[in-house]
């Protein structure tokens, strides 16, 4: 069940002027970054771009399609390895990026066909995708021997392939992009992917995807072949994850089995959940926040990073269901109505406890009531009805 009521803007609406302004500002921010930031930040940001694409693929599929797939890391890894192996063999980096997208999509198509046309239930889908990515991880880890060679490239198992070719200038393949050039390409692609997914949500395809999340059976009874739409969304997300994988592999530079791992799958969920899964900008923000936080923790020597991350995950599931961005969005309203809000928050645990097994209708209602306090959530939109 998704509480899109917290979304800052209804995703099926055509974006308003301020949204375009926001995208332009974001793009401008990225463009000027190398001018005023130190080299290390540029390198870090380049790394985040690949991860942000992975987060976007998850945010789109989970937040809007209602499909919680742990397999995004699988397509991410496939993209990374696909790019690396092809680019090392052929030397053509631009084509290899497209191949990475196609490879992610192909993986998603095969797995998705199995699951979606087999009508596996929601939770089995989650577990099946998880098992899929684990199989890939185990498989790739087991390729340390020198007999595992594709073309001229050794897969190297556990070690991964550290010789990932850097992106070259598409129209002049003899020149490698420098650090700033790579940063620009990554930033552009991220903005494009975000833009594409955001606009996609306003199309019929996007609306049906949201319909799937809200009520799959109803969508089917309305005559939509839900399996096709679901598979479509799955394949699209697989492609985005594949692109992210290729970029990530270039940025660190390493294609390695950790890309498929359980830990990585947990990271993706954390980004999307912390950033806010009812938005598309949330997952991107989640990547930047969590990854920066993790990097910082590792230099502080405060002990187990997983301890902190586990606690963060629990707190977000229990308390900040909506993620940071939407929560921040409702803060002014909370302040204005603070007494009432407090009363409701205090009443929440008791209310939830009173709710019957299997039905959290009441909690839902409460959340909706809370949401009503926010301007724009139950917005009288400017959509013209002719």
């Amino acid at each position, binding site marked *: 069940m998704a509480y899109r009521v917290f979304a800052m803007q209804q995703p099926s609406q055509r974006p308003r002027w301020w949204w375009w302004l926001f995208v332009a500002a974001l793009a401008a921010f990225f463009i000027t970054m190398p001018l005023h930031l130190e080299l290390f930040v540029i390198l870090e940001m380049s790394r985040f771009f690949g991860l942000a694409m992975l987060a976007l693929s998850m945010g789109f599929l989970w937040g809007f399609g209602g499909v919680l797939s742990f397999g995004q890391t699988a397509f991410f890894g496939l993209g990374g390895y696909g790019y690396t192996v092809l680019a090392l063999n052929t030397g053509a980096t631009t084509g290899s990026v497209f191949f990475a997208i196609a490879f992610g999509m192909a993986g998603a198509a095969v797995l998705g066909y199995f699951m979606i046309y087999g009508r596996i239930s929601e939770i089995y889908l989650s577990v099946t995708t998880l098992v899929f990515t684990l199989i890939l991880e185990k498989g790739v880890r087991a390729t340390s021997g020198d007999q595992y060679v594709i073309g001229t490239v050794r897969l190297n198992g556990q070690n991964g392939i550290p010789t990932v070719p850097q992106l070259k200038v598409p129209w002049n393949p003899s020149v490698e992009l420098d650090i700033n050039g790579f940063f620009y390409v990554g930033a552009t692609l991220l903005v494009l992917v975000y833009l594409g997914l955001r606009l996609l949500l306003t199309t*019929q395809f996007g609306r049906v995807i949201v319909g799937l999340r809200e009520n799959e059976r109803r969508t089917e009874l309305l005559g939509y072949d*839900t399996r096709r739409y679901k598979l479509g969304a799955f394949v699209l997300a697989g492609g985005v994850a594949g692109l992210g994988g290729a970029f990530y592999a270039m940025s660190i530079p390493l294609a390695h089995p950790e890309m498929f791992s359980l830990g990585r799958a947990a990271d993706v969920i954390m980004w999307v959940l912390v950033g806010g899964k009812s938005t598309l900008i949330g997952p991107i923000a989640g990547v930047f926040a969590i990854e920066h936080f993790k990097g910082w923790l590792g230099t502080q020597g405060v002990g187990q990073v997983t301890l902190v991350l586990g606690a963060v995950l629990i707190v977000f599931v229990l308390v900040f269901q909506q993620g940071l961005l939407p929560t921040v969005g409702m803060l002014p309203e909370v302040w204005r109505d603070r007494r009432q809000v407090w009363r409701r928050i205090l009443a929440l645990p008791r209310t939830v406890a009173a709710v019957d097994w299997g039905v959290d209708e009441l909690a839902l209602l409460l959340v*909706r009531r809370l949401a009503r306090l926010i301007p724009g959530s139950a917005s*009288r939109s400017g959509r013209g009805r002719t």
Partner: protein
Amino acid sequence: MSEREIILETRALEKRFGGVRAIAGVDFRLARGELRCLIGPNGAGKSTFFKMLTAQLRPSAGQIVFDGHDITRAQAHRISRHGIGIKNQVPDVYDGITVHENLWLAARYRHGPRAAQAKIDEILSRLELVAIADTIVGELAHGQRQWVEFGMVTVLEPQVILLDEPTAGMTIEETNRTAALIKEVNQTTTIVVVEHDMQFIRQIARTVTVFHQGKILAEDTMENIQRNQTVRDVYLGKSGGA
């Protein structure tokens, strides 16, 4: 009835859940243009029957023929495209999006982008939902959500509409309005209604089919059904009358 065209027919339809036969051999015939009511005590199999007609459940045995096509094994979306629309017992709407968006999803597929808006506007005004078109459906009262679903089904313009308890949770006024709406839609569309509210059924029904223990117990006009002793026993014995 036999002189009219049969649009929907089931032959020896059966549904077993483990050892229980929820539907135990139903031969059901529906003529084009009818407004049929299905009644029966709880657990008689009415909702199961509806779900099999719309492929939400697979029949264990038997056959369903709609408009000359065997749709026994068809996928749910195929059946919808053939022209059967259903409003389920529990309001089956998109709770997280607006009324308008709900109707849009229904109309867009059937009518294409340009005609859809006109159809939506027509339905909105007919159901008097214009004022709440931009409200999130999950925030509406139960009765209003029922109407939204009713609107989604009618905007599909199916040949047959199945309505499972369309007035549950409605006030008397709302019920009366629903009855009027159903009669209005029935001008162009064949309708089957499952209801418990006898008052409501008297308002709309011409032919009534009584389900009991997964079988058709009786099928007749409302007046005759009300006089039928077997039917009264079933109701009085089970749920104490309506």
